[in-house]
Structures are given as structure tokens and as C-alpha cells.
């Protein structure tokens, strides 16, 4: 069993690492990079939603803050990517802390509301703050990162995001099975009981939220240097909802779920391009279908996010039971 797992992981790694060479099609590599970006975004949001049970509808904004921070530093001060990248994460974390401090004491639904609002505010401030962000004109010409003097090729971007994804997933996996992760989950399950176990609710909620935001900020920074043009509409409400959908579709609260959700939602629309204007109709329909059939998402964890056993049985036996 264990051997099998190791073999699978090894094979998977080899495939992933050699991907740009087996499939030397820049389009497919780009899709893979986008998958990586959204896998990280969804995984980080999952810390907030799936583990800690808080509802955030503004994840796109933190992603955007990371992107803008890194891009502006690179464009205005010519700082290298390796400096602006962590700073993007730090700036998003800073905003995460601020939002967290302001709203994490409130009722759940208000976190949803405030983050939604924060997303809008961020977008609109970016659009209105011409002198810094160039407003609706966006930021073109963001430099390509270099690695020991060599500019990133597409494969370079690919390996960077591959490594980044692996690190994030490993981190979340470890977190999940640690004291801190358990504290997050306990908060999701029952706040009052959690506080009686000595868990500092506010502290741990803020920690979860900030972690998620900083990771989103880091990906944002990467995205800015990958896309090389960013504008406010790339980080708006739609983005937040898309990330949320990835988490829910893949599997809330599970580690694999968000990865799968992101992959499916990035790849699906590409594969179904030929459906033209029906593409999005089918997208909506499939989303509903999957959730109705598997409410916890494709690989949702057992528990809160899954249908209670009796509920499934009830339907089944109701038909049987004659009247």
C-alpha cells in the first residue's frame, strides 16, 4: 500500500517535472501555469472557509493587492522580483490583518459581507487612485523575473509555480494535522467550546485569515510578473467568486479538493471552447449538478460538508415505504 503510494507520487512528480518537455505546446503550458495559480489561491481560501469555517468573499482582492504591490515596486523602483515577490505577500497579509481585526469579532455573515465590500473597495480605489496605480489604464510592461541573470522562460514560470504549489500544499497538509490546524477546525465546529479549550478565537481566526491572504498575495505577485499586464478588473468580485467556486466544487475542507476544483474549472472551459455561447450555460448547470450530487465537492471531506447518511437513505426508503 505504502509502496504503491510512493510509486504514484514519484511517477506524478516525474510527469509534472517533465511536462514542458513532453508537451512542448506553450498554450498547454500556460494552462498548466494558470492551474497552478488557482490551485494555490483555492487552497489558501480553503484555510479560511474549509478549516476555520469563516466565510470570505473577497479573496480576489488580496490576490490583487499582492499583484499591484509587486508590480508597482518593480515598475517604479526597479526592485527585482525576488524582493517584490515576498513584499506582495506581506502587503496582502497586512491588509488581511487589518480586515481581520476589524471584522473577525462580528457574526459570520459580516465577514462575508465585509470581505465582499473590501473587494469592491480595493477595486475602486485602484481605479480611482490614478497617480499611483494608473487607474483604469492598468500597469503594462511589468518586467520578467530573472534567475541568476537569466530571464524566466515559460518553463521557468512553470517550474516556479510548480514548486510554489508543492510548498503550499505541503504546508497546508502539515498544518491540517497540527495543533494549529486542529484549533482552526475546532473554531469551525464550535467557537464557545473551542475557547474553553484555551484557543484564542480571535488570534487563531486572524492567523487563519492572514495566512490565507498572504499566500494569495504571493500568488498575485507571481501573476503580475507572469501576465506582465495587470488591471483592476482582473481582481474583482468575479475572481473571488471563481476561487470560492473552485474550493466548493473540488471539496471544502479537504486538501486535495481545492487542487482538483481549480484544475477542473480552469481546464473545463478550455476543453469546451467549441460550445461557444453554450459554454457558460453548461458550466452553470454542471456546477449545480456536482454540488447537488456531492454537496461536499468532488473529494469533499467527511463531515459538515457532506450529506448526512440518513438523508440519503431517507429518500431511498421513502419510495419503498407504501402508504
Amino acid at each position: 500500500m505504502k509502496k504503491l503510494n510512493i510509486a504514484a507520487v514519484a511517477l506524478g512528480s516525474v510527469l509534472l517535472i517533465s511536462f514542458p518537455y513532453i508537451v512542448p505546446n506553450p498554450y498547454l503550458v500556460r494552462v498548466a501555469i494558470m492551474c497552478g495559480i488557482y490551485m494555490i489561491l483555492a487552497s489558501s481560501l480553503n484555510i479560511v472557509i474549509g478549516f476555520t469555517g469563516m466565510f470570505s468573499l473577497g479573496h480576489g482582492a488580496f490576490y490583487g493587492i499582492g499583484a499591484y504591490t509587486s508590480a508597482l515596486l518593480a515598475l517604479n523602483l526597479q526592485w527585482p522580483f525576488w524582493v517584490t515577490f515576498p513584499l506582495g505577500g506581506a502587503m496582502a497579509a497586512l491588509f488581511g490583518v487589518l480586515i481581520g481585526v476589524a471584522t473577525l469579532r462580528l457574526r459570520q455573515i459580516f465577514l462575508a459581507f465585509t470581505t465582499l465590500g473590501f473587494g469592491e473597495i480595493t477595486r475602486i480605489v485602484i481605479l480611482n487612485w490614478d497617480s499611483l496605480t494608473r487607474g483604469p489604464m492598468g500597469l503594462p510592461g511589468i518586467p520578467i523575473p530573472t534567475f541568476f541573470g537569466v530571464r524566466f522562460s515559460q518553463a521557468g514560470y512553470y517550474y516556479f509555480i510548480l514548486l510554489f504549489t508543492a510548498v503550499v500544499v505541503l504546508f497546508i497538509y502539515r498544518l491540517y494535522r497540527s495543533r494549529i490546524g486542529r484549533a482552526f477546525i475546532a473554531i469551525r465546529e464550535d467557537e464557545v467550546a473551542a475557547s474553553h479549550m484555551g484557543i484564542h478565537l480571535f488570534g487563531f481566526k486572524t492567523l487563519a485569515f492572514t495566512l490565507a491572504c498572504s499566500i494569495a498575495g504571493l500568488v498575485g505577485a507571481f501573476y503580475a510578473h507572469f501576465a506582465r499586464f495587470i488591471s483592476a478588473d482582473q481582481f474583482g468580485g468575479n475572481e473571488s467568486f471563481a476561487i470560492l467556486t473552485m474550493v466548493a466544487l473540488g471539496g471544502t475542507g479537504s486538501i486535495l479538493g481545492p487542487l482538483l476544483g481549480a484544475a477542473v474549472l480552469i481546464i473545463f472551459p478550455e476543453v469546451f471552447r467549441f460550445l461557444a455561447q453554450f459554454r457558460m450555460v453548461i458550466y452553470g448547470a454542471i456546477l449545480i449538478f456536482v454540488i447537488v450530487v456531492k454537496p461536499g465537492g468532488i473529494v469533499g471531506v467527511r463531515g459538515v460538508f457532506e450529506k448526512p447518511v440518513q438523508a440519503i437513505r431517507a429518500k431511498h426508503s421513502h419510495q419503498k415505504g407504501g402508504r
Partner: protein
Amino acid sequence: MFFQMRKVRKSFGGLVAVNDVDLDVQKGAIHAVIGPNGAGKTTLFNCITGLRRADAGEILFEGENIKDLPTHRIAARGIGRTFQNIRLFPYLSVLDNVKVGTHLLNHTTLWDTALKTPRFRRLEGEVEEFCMELLRQTRLLEKKDQYARNLPYGEQRKLEIARALASKPKLLLLDEPAAGMNPAETAELDDFIRSLKAKGITIILIEHDMKLVMSIADTISVIDYGVKIAEGTALEIQSNERVIEAYLGKRRN
């Protein structure tokens, strides 16, 4: 004095649920609090653990006033509790419920976790072992992988106690631990609580099962309408006219 309450008061709107209550609990004792429904016993516990903030008075634990500390700080001082209305983590496994209880014992940091340091491995291993031991003691070991919410009522109560013990509390507050247990099970609980006392844990117990209370309590305080109306040993309380009238009634058997 190990634990003391001085003129603690808590009101909800016009209703004074806890009215200037004094309480002295000796180290290592089992101290029962009884009283009619709605007398304010649970509210008293809530004030101790910070779930509700007492309006006035002092709550001294090991000589320090903990009245205005937040809940998690109070827990960190070494006060554990169970809830009358059972508050487990419903979708965590039995084992994980107890593991959450050890939150305060283990101090792994984010770095330890991220890098999976040897310290992290060691601490996690200890936690696992300790929790399994607790489950063995409470006879829940067999069910360690079930969701807490799927346990029957009586076992949920046991799990609450196990979880509270996981933080190695010095003072344990039990709110009606025998509710939902039949007399045979209650007898088992009786033994278990005694074993805790033997380990040096001080216990404050709210209970309506008089058989249990009279058998294990060193001291009993009686509360009615938020006011302490009597205090003493089991014998003293059983014969106290006021207590009989307000609470015990004339039992048939």
C-alpha cells in the same frame, strides 16, 4: 484558598441570576453546587470560565482575580469544564475532540509545523499517546474514529469529560455529568470522579442526581434564585428544612 468567589453577581435585564454568591473551594475537594432549575448554577459556571462576564464581585483562582480575563486565558490558568447542553466538536472524531483539548499543553509554532521539526514530531507523538490513554480510561477507545455527533447521549457526556481532562486542569467544572445516564452508569461515573480526585484535581460539580452528589461531595452549596441558601456536608444539607422545601422535596423512596 485555592478557589474563591466573593459576592459574585450577574443579572440579565431585570433578572438577577447570580446574586452576591460567595464560594470557597478547598484544593483537592469535590464541591457540589445544587439548586432548583433556573437557580443560576450554570450561570455561575459561565461567570467562572468567562463565557459570561460577572457584573460585580471577585473570582479568585490561586489567589489571583480572573473575573475579567477572556475565556481562553482562564482555560490557560488550569480551569476546565463540561457543558450542560453538550458542546462537542460534532464533526471531529472522538480522538480529535480530545486532541483539541490538549491545545494548551503543546506549544508547537507555525515554524515547527511548516518544517516538521523533530520537536513537532515529538510533541505530536506525546499528544497522541496521552489522548489514547484518556480514551482508555473513559472507555471510549473503541469509538475513537467516530464522529462525536454520532455517539449516544451518555457517551457524549463522557467524551466531554475526557476532553476537559485533556488540558490537565487543576480545577474541573462539571455541569450535570450524570444527566442521561442510568443508575448503573452513574455508579461508574461516581468511581471515575473519585479517581480524578485521587489524582489531585479539584472539582466543582453541578448535579441533580442526589445519590451521586450525596455520595461523593465533600461540601455542598445550595443555590436558589441566585442566592446561596445553605452550605455544608451531605448530612447537613439533607436535613436542612429550607433545602428540602426548595429543592429536594420529600422523596418517595
